[in-house]
């Protein structure tokens, strides 16, 4: 087990270096940070001087190695746009994104599993058809459209929920939470629903498909023959065996929700790392973009590691397989 984790950590480092390398290569084509920083009133001489000082004239590999060197020491530089340390900016905005991701993942997971089981156990009911069709709508509509639609219905027309922002927040040490205030809880409802729709559909259909498959297997039939109650069969045996692929997908989805809740954060003006990234791309704020992509790689790597460890716990076959060295 330990060797397994060590190997995965080593692979993770390689993944992050590769991401940083590709990101750096791409940044050369995203635009010129200097003209964004200096504005209309500057001379060409000023532009050249700033390029020199920022080290933008250095060859690519030198820029890359100094970035990696600094990153290993925890130094991600200063944002060109906001002129504050990048690590501080990301840390400040991380709680907002994580809370949003957590809220939406919870909704998606709970509702997805429940609806998935329901539609698997009653494949021919009318309500199943309604749920499956409605879920398709949730997947086909783009996130920003759903977001704007929800804002118009609940904020503009009904005036029951706020139209943007995170509401009042409470500082718990370093972490800023919106869960402890009424306005915070009200503000997270719409963005969490918007963000959860896609995942919910995915999880629901996956659970349904897996359960339908598992319910057809021999050991389920033998369990029925043995006289086990339907409930024991469905939840004690069938559900557990469907969870492995569901955990994989949920893990990957959670990673992508944390990393790329960008659209939802922009639509709802949610002060997370996603909207920080979008604002940075618009002005080619390279330090923030580079740090953000490395951070995203880290998130995926960590989540995948946790998912793999969970396999071990959930699936006895893997545990036994490892022990007997097969």
């Amino acid at each position, binding site marked *: 087990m330990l060797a397994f984790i060590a190997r995965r950590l080593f692979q993770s480092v390689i993944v992050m270096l590769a991401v940083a390398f590709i990101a750096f290569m791409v940044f050369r084509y*995203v*635009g*010129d*940070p200097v*003209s*964004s*920083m*200096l*504005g*209309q*009133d*500057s*001379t*060409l*001489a*000023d*532009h050249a001087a*700033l390029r020199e*000082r*920022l080290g933008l004239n250095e060859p690519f590999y030198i820029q890359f190695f100094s970035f990696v060197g600094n990153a290993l020491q925890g*130094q991600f*530089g*200063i*944002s*060109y*746009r*906001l*002129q*504050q*340390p990048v690590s501080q*900016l990301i840390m400040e905005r991380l709680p907002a994104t994580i809370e949003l991701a957590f809220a939406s993942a919870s909704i998606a997971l709970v509702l997805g599993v429940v609806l998935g089981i329901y539609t698997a156990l009653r494949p021919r009911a009318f309500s199943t058809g309604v749920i499956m069709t409605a879920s398709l709508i949730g997947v086909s509509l783009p996130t*920003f459209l759903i977001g*704007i639609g929800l*804002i*118009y219905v609940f*904020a*503009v027309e009904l*005036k029951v929920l*706020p*139209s*943007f*922002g*995170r509401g009042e927040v409470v500082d718990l040490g370093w972490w800023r939470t919106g869960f402890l205030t009424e306005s915070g809880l009200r503000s997270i409802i719409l963005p969490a629903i918007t963000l959860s729709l896609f995942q919910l559909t995915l999880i629901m259909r996956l659970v349904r498909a897996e359960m339908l498959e598992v319910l057809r297997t021999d050991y389920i039939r033998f369990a029925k023959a043995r006289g086990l109650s339907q409930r024991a069969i469905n939840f004690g045996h069938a559900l557990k065996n469907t969870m492995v692929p569901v955990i994989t997908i949920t893990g990957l989805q959670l990673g992508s929700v944390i990393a790329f809740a960008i659209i939802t954060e*922009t*639509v*709802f*003006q949610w*002060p997370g790392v996603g*909207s*920080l990234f*979008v*604002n940075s791309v*618009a*002005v*080619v704020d390279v330090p923030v973009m580079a740090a953000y992509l490395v951070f995203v790689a880290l998130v995926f790597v960590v989540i995948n590691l946790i998912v793999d460890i969970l396999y071990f716990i959930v699936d006895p076959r893997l545990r036994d397989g490892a022990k007997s060295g097969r």
Partner: protein
Amino acid sequence: MHTSLTRIAAVLIASTMLAGVAQAETVRWARSSDSLTLDPHSQNQGVTHTFAHHIYETLMWRDTEGTLIPRLATEWYVKEGDPTVWVFKLREGVKFHDGADFTAEDVVFSLDRARSEGSNLKQLHAEVAEVRAVDDYTVEVQMVGPSPLYPNNVTNTFIMDKTWSETNNVEEVQDFAAGESNYAVLNTNGTGPYMLTSREVDVRSVLSVFDGWWGEAPEVTEIVYLPIADNATRIAALLSGDVDIVQDVPVQDIERLQNSPGFKVETGPENRVIYFGYRFGDEPLRSSNITDSNPFDNPLVREAMELALDRDAIQQVVMRGNSIPTGVATPPFVNGWTEELDQYPAPDVERAKELLAEAGYPDGFSVTLDTPNNRYVNDEAISTAYVGMLGQIGIDVTLASRPIAEHSPIILGDETDFYLLGWGVPTFDSAYIFNDLVHTKNETHGTYNVGGYSNPELDEKIISLGTETDLDARNATIAEIWEVVKADRVLLPVHNQTLAYAMREDITLPVHPENQPNMTTVVFAE
């Protein structure tokens, strides 16, 4: 009986007291982006300046008509007998938010700081040789040579407290190239009507009224500044009552907001002209099928292109009425603009085709148009419309559309044959336009003269504008330069942008031509 009389008296007295106490009015103000920094000399950017004008103040600034008015300076004049020195008389009895007195040494410190290496404002003070305090309320600015228009350049140069800056180690403007942050990025001490109460970058900033301000107490006592990036969300926030004033209103929402009960839209001209530029010189264009000449270099071709441009159609269809078509590449507030220059020819497709044939391009030619797509109002749509118009006269245009972060390097790197750009004139004087757009490109001038237009006679006249102290002679020179610029069609202006602010019906915030409205101008309906 006795008790109830007392009660009635108490209520009456209480209500008169209430009438005497000023109402606390909070205004929630939404824009598309946040101020970049609170360090007043670090960035020369509109949104940052607009926010700073509430906390800090400048020597003079512009009102909603665009006129230069006194602020921290009550008088300004050229020194008697020495045309290279500007004298500024300062307002007395002004206090900083921390209680310190405002004196000449703060002005000297601030102007020197604005001229320093790390400041993005230094280009505006390039002609300054030295700043000195004559006494506590008089400052002399020694220019390199006679500079009749220097006061136009101080309207966005804020005054900081020297002692506060020294105490907090912010005498130097932040050097983010060296990777440093500094105290002034998040903290302030100004003379302005509002003090900073809290700041969460890209989320919300709160300003509260400063009781010790020298001016008339504003009606707005608290400002909550809310950057909301998404256009639809910003308008939804206004409609749902979550914000009171929206400054950046997308053109397509103006009509709808005007028709919504409970809301209104204030509009006014903006100090920004949108124009097309093209390459001069006889080197063939990179993106054209004509390989032995440069069509744009031929004045007949340029005339044809202007005759193909239907500015009124663009105003009606693309801008939905929200633009002011113009025939000269300057907004109307700028010194040098005249009604004659503003005239533009009616579109004439037949004549344009004739001119092209005369010029030697009977089959037209092809070229690429570079346009930004996220900087000016409907910029890409304007370019797309013009592509269609040029197609009618036989010019086959390929449209290359990019975000401004990628468009700017192409402009500054001289890699374009034909482009769209917008230009604001913060000094409200034509010399600003000439210096950057018309003068031959060199180390100090013509930074945005992308087409490479070069007219040495004009260059001389442009340079003379910097030092000519006889205002009549200067204005005459400006008129001469504009005549040549218009006759040569150095640039092809389309229109001036208009600004629209949307707000709750009972609030009035007048439109400011530089898009720098100030909450002290807000009036609440009775």
